[in-house]
């Protein structure tokens, strides 16, 4: 089958149950919002292909169950992810506090160079807000992760969040490519898949340590 994209990025949405992971994904992939969403059981995914600086980037976005009980199942999907969205609900203090636990989860299960982003969702519900934007920003600074407040319902910042994450992954990937193969990077070899990137030759330094 001929590839219709230049890059394939695998992304993951994690966060407490009910923070709006599925709604965010639905807003991004279908540009719609549905009040009667059903709980996500286990894991599911959606696809959207976007255009980034003239390149077709296919985003394969995995949506996970938020309940602790499914943790062993969902963490198996961390490994192949190149970008992870950590979602909390600005009207739910606990979901914000748990972001730290989710970050620990990433550190234990995901690839070290995975791109991360924190999303404070439901920012349209100003009257019910429990977590201020400043606290979100502070947490993001603490972990040196990008942060944005979103509203899947009002379609606020969802698009830009995914574009930002995708752009960061793309930049990192191209930098790596250039580092490992400065000549090839400009030769028009653009058909890169996630797995190829993972199977990058071992670095000169690690070879050196074998000496």
């Amino acid at each position, binding site marked *: 089958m001929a590839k219709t994209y230049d890059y394939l990025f695998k992304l993951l949405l994690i966060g407490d149950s009910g923070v709006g992971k599925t709604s965010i994904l639905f807003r991004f992939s279908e540009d719609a919002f549905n009040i*009667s969403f059903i709980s996500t059981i286990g894991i*599911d995914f959606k696809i959207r*292909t976007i255009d980034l600086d003239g390149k077709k980037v296919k985003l394969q976005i995995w949506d996970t169950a938020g309940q602790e009980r*499914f943790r*062993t199942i969902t963490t198996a999907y961390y490994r192949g992810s190149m970008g992870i969205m950590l979602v909390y609900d600005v009207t739910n203090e606990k979901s914000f506090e748990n972001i730290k636990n989710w970050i620990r989860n990433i550190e234990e299960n995901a690839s070290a160079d995975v791109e991360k982003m924190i999303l404070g969702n439901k920012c349209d519900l100003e009257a019910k807000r429990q977590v201020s934007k400043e606290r979100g920003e502070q947490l993001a600074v603490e972990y*040196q992760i990008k942060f944005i407040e979103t509203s899947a319902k009002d379609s606020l910042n969802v698009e830009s969040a995914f574009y930002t994450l995708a752009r960061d992954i793309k930049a990192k990937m191209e930098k790596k490519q250039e580092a490992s193969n*400065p000549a090839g990077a400009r030769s028009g070899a653009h058909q890169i898949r996630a797995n190829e990137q993972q199977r990058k030759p071992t670095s000169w*330094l690690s070879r050196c340590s074998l000496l």
Partner: protein
Amino acid sequence: MESNKTDSDIGDKCNSNGDCSPTPNKQSFDINNAKNIDDISTPSELKFDEEPDYEDPEVKEKKKEIEKCLENLDWVNLEQWQDFAKGKAGLISDDYRRKIWPLLVGVTQEEMTEPPSLDELSTHIEYNQVVLDVNRSLKRFPPGIPYEQRVALQDQLTVLILRVIMKYPHLKYYQGYHDVAITLLLVCGDRASFPLLCRLSYGPGAPLAPFMQTTMQPTQHLLNYMLPVISRADRKLAECLDKAQVGTMFALPWYLTWFGHSLNKYTDVVRLYDYFLCAPPLFPVYVTAAIVLYRADEVFNCECDMAMLHCLLSRLPDDLPFEDILVTAKRLYEDNDPTDLEAEVAALERREEEQRRLDEERLKRRQLANRRNASSVAARLRRCVPAALRGPWSRRACLATATVLLGIYVYYRPDILFNRTRPERTAPSVPRASQRAIRPPQMGPSRADADTESRRT
């Protein structure tokens, strides 16, 4: 109503995206049935589908038989009810189901007690999670149901779930349990559904009990039985699934909810429940296998990729011939008893474990390499070295050149080797300072370890 419309939109849009092709949801419920819901205390009166105009003569005959049996309850044994439930069209209508489901699992009138109020239960630790899921179960209610009645039913659902997990505190609520609970509630009402759900959740052979353990591991184990069943029936199909490493997760919500979460047609859900209520606990896994076997051609036509296959299989078409699928599942069960499959499942899990171990090792190696790569001054220098010098063949050349250069240097500056002061502090301090300077900002707190690690090597 709205939700249904949006659902079919999902299908179309997803299709237009070209990669993910779920079956578009049909408007499966008759919207105009609010008239059936007059009294909230009898939720079993809810109707999802209009009676079909054409009625199969066989089914018509079966109805008569069931009615006769219901008139002579004392004369009918369990086996007879099971035959009805398993046979073609199952128990046919919710009017029969309401009376027969409790009989299938041996619930007595005395057990059907008045439920407590929601306020009494709201302090339970799982209360919030249950309410979250119940609030997101709108799809399961009859479309067009008046708001007040729906809210009352949702409260009944919350009470029902909390009652069970309070009665058996060692059982853990899972997302999906609410899908089973609501099916029982809609058919049998709040009094009968409590002992029914208890029977399904607790006791030896209780089908939902493995899902309610501390982890999902027992569930994953049981779901693994699907693969050898498929393999024995269609080796080529099993190989295809194995090659794509699609696993069993696409079927997880089917098994956890007895398909209640994943099917759009209410009549399909209750038909399956007729059967499952009197089948062995592992039977839903055989139904899963039968569905995958039925869709073999779709699998063969799909790109052999984990995500694509997961996407294809996890979305159940609306027109699955469940009567045939149940017959297939029954045959599969008779031909491949779970005890016969144990060795194959164990082998499969050993392989998975081995794969997981290898993946983890690879991940660790990569993490270590990345850290070294990012933190080492050599990594930067490396970029300045011409590509020709970076090939594996140049390793020896580099080493030899370095040795010669060092030799020359020592020759001219013997003091550096024989007369230096505190050499161990001056030497490494240069790279360490540089390491700090080029440390990428997004790297986490474990940098220090990486530094030590790279120096050690």
